[in-house]
C-alpha cells in the first residue's frame, strides 16, 4: 500500500530522450531556422556562382553597407521586444546626421560634433519615449507623428541641402573609423560585433533587459510585479534614439556628407530584419542574435543580386521569393514536414 499512495511526479516531467547535438541546434534555432538555412544556402550558392562573393573585399563591403541597418535594427530590437515599434527611426537618423554635419560645418571639433549628434539622438528618443510612456499616446501614433516631424526637421536644418563634410578636418576621425581597417579587419566590423555582443548581454543579463522582455510579454504582469513600465518604455526609445545617432554617424562617414533625404525603404528594411530574425512583432520574444541573422540575410540577398547582375525589374521578385521560401523552410520544419529526428511536442497538459 505504501507503494500505492506514493505520489509520483506529474506525467509530463519525464525527460525526453536525450537528443543529439545537431538535433539540439536544429531545435533551438526556433523561429530563425528557416532564415538560417536560407542564409546558408544563399552563401553556398553565391560562393559557387560568383567567385568574387567569398573574397574578403566583398565581405567587408557587405559589412560596410549593412552597418547602418544593423545599428538601427539593434535599437529597433529593444523597442519591438518591449512590445512597441519606432517608425521614426530612419527620420531620427536624418536629424542626427544633419546635426553632426552642421556642427562640423560650424567648426566644432571632431568629438564635440559626435557628442552633439549623440545628444540629439537621445533628445529625439526622449521625445518619443515621454509622449509614449508618460503622456500615454499609442506608440504607433507618436512615432508616426515624429517620423513626419523629424523628416521635416532634417529638411529645415539646411534648407534641404546636403552638407558635404569630406574636406572638413573634424570629420577625419569618423571617416577613418568608418572606412579604416586594422590588420585587414574593418573597424566597422569590430564595432558591429561589440555592439551586438553588448546589446545581447544587456538583454540577457540585466534587470533592465529582462524588464524589456517582461513588458513585451505581458505589460500588466510586468506592472503588477513592480517593474517600472514607464521608465523601461522610455529607456527603449532612448536606446532607439541613440542607435539612430550612431547609425547616422556611420552613414555620414560612408557618404562623406550629411543628407536630409531619407531612404524610403530604410524603415521597412530595419523592421523586416528584426522580424525575420525571429523577434515577435507583439513583443516579449526574440533577441539581437536573430536580428543579426535578419540583417545578414537581407544584406546577402542585396549583394548577391548586385553581383549576379539580376535585371532591375526582377530583383524584387527574387528578393521576395527568397524571403518567403526561407521562412517557409522554418515553418515546414516546425510542422514536421522536414523531419530531422524531432521528438514529440511536449504535452501542454
Amino acid at each position: 500500500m505504501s507503494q500505492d499512495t506514493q505520489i509520483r511526479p506529474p506525467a509530463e516531467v519525464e525527460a525526453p530522450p536525450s537528443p543529439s547535438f545537431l538535433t539540439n541546434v536544429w531545435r533551438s534555432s526556433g523561429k530563425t531556422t528557416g532564415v538560417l538555412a536560407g542564409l546558408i544556402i544563399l552563401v553556398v550558392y553565391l560562393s559557387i556562382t560568383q567567385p568574387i562573393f567569398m573574397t574578403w573585399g566583398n565581405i567587408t563591403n557587405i559589412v560596410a553597407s549593412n552597418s547602418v541597418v544593423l545599428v538601427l535594427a539593434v535599437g529597433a530590437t529593444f523597442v519591438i521586444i518591449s512590445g512597441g515599434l519606432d517608425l521614426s527611426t530612419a527620420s531620427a537618423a536624418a536629424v542626427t546626421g544633419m546635426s553632426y554635419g552642421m556642427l562640423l560645418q560650424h567648426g566644432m571639433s571632431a568629438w564635440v560634433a559626435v557628442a552633439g549628434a549623440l545628444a540629439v539622438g537621445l533628445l529625439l528618443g526622449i521625445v518619443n519615449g515621454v509622449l509614449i510612456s508618460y503622456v500615454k499616446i499609442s506608440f504607433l501614433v507618436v512615432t508616426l507623428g515624429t517620423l513626419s516631424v523629424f523628416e521635416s526637421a532634417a529638411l529645415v536644418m539646411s534648407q534641404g541641402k546636403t552638407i558635404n563634410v569630406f574636406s572638413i578636418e573634424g570629420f577625419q576621425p569618423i571617416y577613418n573609423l568608418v572606412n579604416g581597417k586594422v590588420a585587414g579587419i574593418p573597424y566597422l566590423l569590430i564595432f558591429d560585433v561589440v555592439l551586438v555582443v553588448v546589446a545581447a548581454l544587456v538583454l540577457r543579463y540585466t534587470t533592465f533587459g529582462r524588464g524589456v522582455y517582461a513588458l513585451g510579454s505581458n505589460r500588466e504582469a510586468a506592472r503588477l510585479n513592480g517593474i517600472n513600465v514607464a521608465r523601461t518604455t522610455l529607456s527603449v526609445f532612448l536606446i532607439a534614439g541613440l542607435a539612430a545617432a550612431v547609425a547616422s554617424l556611420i552613414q555620414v562617414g560612408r557618404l562623406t556628407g550629411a543628407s536630409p533625404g531619407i531612404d524610403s525603404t530604410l524603415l521597412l528594411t530595419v523592421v523586416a530584419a528584426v522580424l525575420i530574425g525571429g523577434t515577435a512583432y507583439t513583443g516579449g520574444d526574440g533577441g539581437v542574435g536573430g536580428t543579426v541573422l535578419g540583417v545578414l540575410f537581407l544584406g546577402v540577398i542585396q549583394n548577391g543580386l548586385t553581383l549576379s547582375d539580376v535585371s532591375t525589374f526582377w530583383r524584387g521578385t527574387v528578393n521576395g521569393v527568397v524571403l518567403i521560401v526561407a521562412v517557409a523552410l522554418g515553418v515546414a520544419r516546425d510542422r514536421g514536414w522536414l523531419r530531422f529526428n524531432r521528438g514529440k511536442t511536449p504535452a501542454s497538459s
Partner: protein
Amino acid sequence: MNASAAPLIEVRGVSKRYPGVLALDNASLTVSPGEIVALTGENGSGKSTLSKIIGGAEQPDGGVVLVDGVETVIANPATALKLGIVMISQELTLAPQLTVAENVFMGRLPRKGRVIDWATIRRRAREELAALDVHVDVNAKVGDLSVELQQEVEIARAVSSKARLLILDEATSSLSEHATERLLELIREQAKRGVAVLMISHRMPELYSTAGRAAVLRDGKMVGTVPLPSTPESQLVRMMVGRELNDYYGSRDCVPGDVVLQVRDLASADGALAPTSFEVRSGEIVGIAGLVGSGKAQLGMALGGAIPATGEVKVNGAAVTLGDPRRALGAGIGLVPDDRKRAALLPTRSVAHNMTLTWLPKLSKFGVVPTRTEKRRVREAIAEYGVKTSSPAKLITQLSGGNQQKAILGRIFALGCPVYVLSEPTRGVDVGSKSQIYALLQKLTESGAAVVIISSELPELIGLADRVLVCFQGAVRGEVTGDQLQEEVLNAIAVSGHVHEEPS
C-alpha cells in the same frame, strides 16, 4: 485571534466606481499579522476590486487605506510590493514567452553583482515549486503550460517573496484538491510566522479549514464579518447570496436512455492521452477525475476537437471528424475549455458578442445576423445564466471572473447540444450561481443531453455525476459508480492508478 495591536492593513470606507457600476461602496476591512481573513461574496460583489486596491493595482475613488496604522497611498503595485503586500490576482499575470523560472522571480531577479544570476534563478525556482510539490521544467515557457501549472507558478512567485500581507484572489480555483491542500498548508505555516493573509475563494471547505474570519461583500457593500469555523455554512451563504441554498447539486429523476456519445480508442496526438474508450447515454452525467497531467484535460480537448487526436468518436451513431472544433461543434459536442483566458474569451469584444459567437451559425440567415433577435437572445441568456453586467455591450474583460465564466457557460448551454464536454465548468463561480448552474445541468440532462464533466473538485463530481472515470498518467484507470463514489476512492485511483485493495 492572535492579532497584534495595529492591523497590518486597514481599509476604511473605500469606494470604487466603474462606468455603470459601483464596484465598491464604502467598504471597510482589516487584516492583522498572523491572521487569515476570507473575503467572500457573490460574483461581481467587489472582492477582486478590493484586493486590487490593496495591491496598488487600482486607485479608490473614495476612502483610505492604512498600513500599520498609517494612512498610505498605494499608488502602484511597485509601492505595494515595497510595503510587503503581495497579490496573486484572479487573472493570471504571467509573461507567456518567458520561462517558468523567470516568471517566478519577475521584478526581483536575483543578481550576482550587476549581472543576473541565471543559475540561482533556476535553482531557487525549482526549490520554490518543489515546496508546492510541483515538478515542472523551470526552463519551459510558461505559455506552454496548463492553467493549473501556470497558477502554481504564480503561487510560487507569491509565496517565495517576503510578504507581510499575502492576497490570494481565487488562487486555488485552478488547482486540484491535492495541490490546494498543499497550498493551504503553506498558507497556514506562513500565517503562523506572522504573515497576514487575505484569501478569496468560492470553495467553502477551504475557507472553513483555513480562515479565522470571513468578511462578506454584497454589491460592493461590506455586509459583515463573522468568525470561522464557528459560523455555520448556511448562515455564511445566506449573508453572501441573501437566500438559503437547499438541494445544492440538485437531482434528476431520469433513467439514462440510448447511448449518445461513443468514444473508442480516443488518444491525443501529443501522447498525453492514451487510447481511451467509454460511452455516455442520454441523460447521463459522467465525471472525469485525475491529477494534473493525468490526461483529463486532453480528453476534454480531444472530444471537443481542440487538439489533434486519433480514434473514433460518435454522436448518436454518426462519426465525428477529430481535431476540428468546427466539426465537433457541428456534430453536437459543446465544449467549455478549462483555460478561459486562452481558449474561450474574446477580450476585445462585448459580453454580447462573446456570447453570440457560438450561436452565429444558428442565429444568422444567409450569413446575416438578425440583431433584434440577437439582442433578445443575449438579454435572455444573461438573465438565465445570472451574468452580472451593467450592459450587454460592456467589454467582457471588465466583468468579474465568475461572471465571465457564466457568460462562457451560457453561450454553450444555450446551444442545446446533445453532448456537453465541460472542463472545470464552475471555476470561479460563487456558491449561489453554482447551484443555479447545477440545476441547469440537471435540466439539460433531463432533456436528453449527455454530459461529460472534467473537474478537479471531487465534491462537485460526486454530487453531480452518475459515474466518474479516473485518469492516471494519460489513461482511464478506473470507473467509479454508486456508493463507491467517495473522495477517498477517487483520490486513490488518481494518485496511484488503481483502487486500494483494502477492506473498507
